[in-house]
């Protein structure tokens, strides 16, 4: 039988349990609508401004960097899987290692470049670092 049937079954169960809890709660809970309740919570103060705030550009940087390395892992996994069997089958180690080293090396250059050009420093300039506030840290 297929492993995937079992996985699908657990997925179904995993989704059904939360939905079941929500349903039960929907039956049990009261509903007393009131405008004060439904305002956005901002530590008890009256909400100011919109919620679509401009946030630190570094979030994007990190996301872009992640894409690069995530792809790398996708392509490295097959290599990792065959590595030991191939060694056992008598393939010289250097033949197996160099493609990975080249691959990782290229990415390493990319990482170092990103590092040096400040893509992964959360606060970008020395001045910004010196007056790190809560807002900057976001």
């Amino acid at each position, binding site marked *: 039988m297929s492993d995937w049937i079992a996985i699908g079954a657990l997925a179904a169960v995993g989704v059904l349990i939360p939905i079941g809890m929500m349903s039960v709660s929907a039956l049990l809970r009261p509903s007393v609508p009131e405008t004060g309740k439904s305002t956005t919570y901002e530590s008890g103060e009256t909400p100011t401004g919109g919620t679509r705030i401009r946030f630190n550009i570094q979030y994007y940087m990190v996301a872009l960097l992640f894409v690069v390395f995530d792809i790398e892992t996708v392509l490295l996994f097959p290599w990792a899987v065959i590595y030991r069997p191939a060694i056992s089958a008598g393939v010289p180690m250097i033949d197996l290692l160099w493609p990975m080293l080249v691959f990782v090396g*290229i990415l390493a*250059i*990319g990482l*170092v*470049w990103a590092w*040096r*050009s*400040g893509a992964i420093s959360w606060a970008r300039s020395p001045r910004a670092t010196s007056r790190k506030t809560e807002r900057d840290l976001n």
Partner: protein
Amino acid sequence: MVNTLPQVAALLPVFLLAFTGLALLLVDTISPDTRSNTSMAVVGAVGSLAASAASVWLVVSGTGSPDTGGAITLFAEAIKVDTMALFFSAIFASVTALVVVAAHDYFHDHASPAAFYSLTLFAATGMALLAAANSLAVVFVALEMVSLPSYVLVAYLKRNRGSVEAGLKYFLVGALSSAIFLFGISLVYAATGSLLFGGVAEGIGSLDGLAGIAGLGIVMIVGGVAYKTASVPFHFWAPEAYEGAPAPVSAFLSSASKAAGFVVAFRLFTEAFPVGASLAAGIDWVLAFGVLAAVTMTLGNFAAAVQEEVKRMLAYSSIGHAGYVLIGVAALSAGGSANGSVMGAAMAHLLVYGFMNTGAFLFVAMAERWGVGRTFEDYAGLAKRAPVASTAMAVFMFSLAGLPPFAGFFSKYFLFMGAIDNGFLWLAAFGAVNSVVSLYYYSRVVKALFIDDPASSSSLDAIDVRPTGLYAAVVFAAVATVLLLPGFGPVIETAEAAASALF
């Protein structure tokens, strides 16, 4: 001498370009704050010139040509280095060198030029790899390797609304067409069970009931090629992208990137979907390409004729030239005697085009650097203050128009003659008529530069700098365009031999 090297040395141009791109990142890493524009440009130019020299050397020494044992296949046949691959590597690397040198001045006050150089080099690497692809998988990967940096390059001036808009539109059409291209590949794979060109060709020869799938896949692949070469029906990004992009990028895209698209077409439609087998399977892509070529050149030329802005005119003219080169594929016939001639002529045209079109866009870059306007009127009288650059521009324009004293004439001539030899008189006629039309708008530029008077006496005051790099690149391109006339013999003979080897 080459034969004593390991086979992988045939990929030397690709490696050189890739290493240069990485080296540029390293240079920038060593001194990210000083942003040494000059050192980056020097490294980039040296690297791409080295790659160009390596390509030429490998071609001259006969690497991959039938005389020395045929094409060199590497990496489980995914890569195949033959004369055509090296020929195109030479085009890509030369254009890259010109663009990099020119960019030095164009980005003289840009905050972070580093990425520009390395992205250009990486795109060039992708192109060189593309030229050597022997598998649909490599084609797609390399194509994306060209496209992805190109998107960024077009939108490189991120505070310039035109550049961003151009980048967006280029990206949208690019992403869509690469998805279509990919789906086409997947259908071909589904029908033939192979991604290697040879395997696909075998599969095409023995389709049973899957001809429809394969045909649809090929149509989609044609679409992808049309995008990359800025041909109808995926041409409409080109005017936008070329106009909005920084001019060196326009030069790069319209010369090198287009050539990259064509090398794919040349390979795919000779090795993977050979004419004979495709026709036997009921897939008549020859006719499709014929129609595309005719429509593309007509549309490009007539649209160029009504433009008011020089850069946009060049963009449309670049579409027109794509139409000419498409003849190289459209005029193939099963067992045609002139198959090699016509495709070789198309290759030679791309080489010549690489210099003359790059040069023309770099002249526009120079005008942008000076800050004169973008329309024909704004260019009026520039020759009074910048005679050398204007002369170079005149050379490019006349060569693009195919006027006989310049290299552009020969390449077009051999293209049309090859088409006639293969029985495609109508394509050659279309091409000839379009060439005549093109003379009109190309000569408008020359007229503006040399003959028209400047709009006002102060309008030439903007020309207050002599950007050395741009000048060097433009003059070099002009000299190359002129010298390719006497030197056309080896070029066309190499190209023809390279193309003939595919049939």
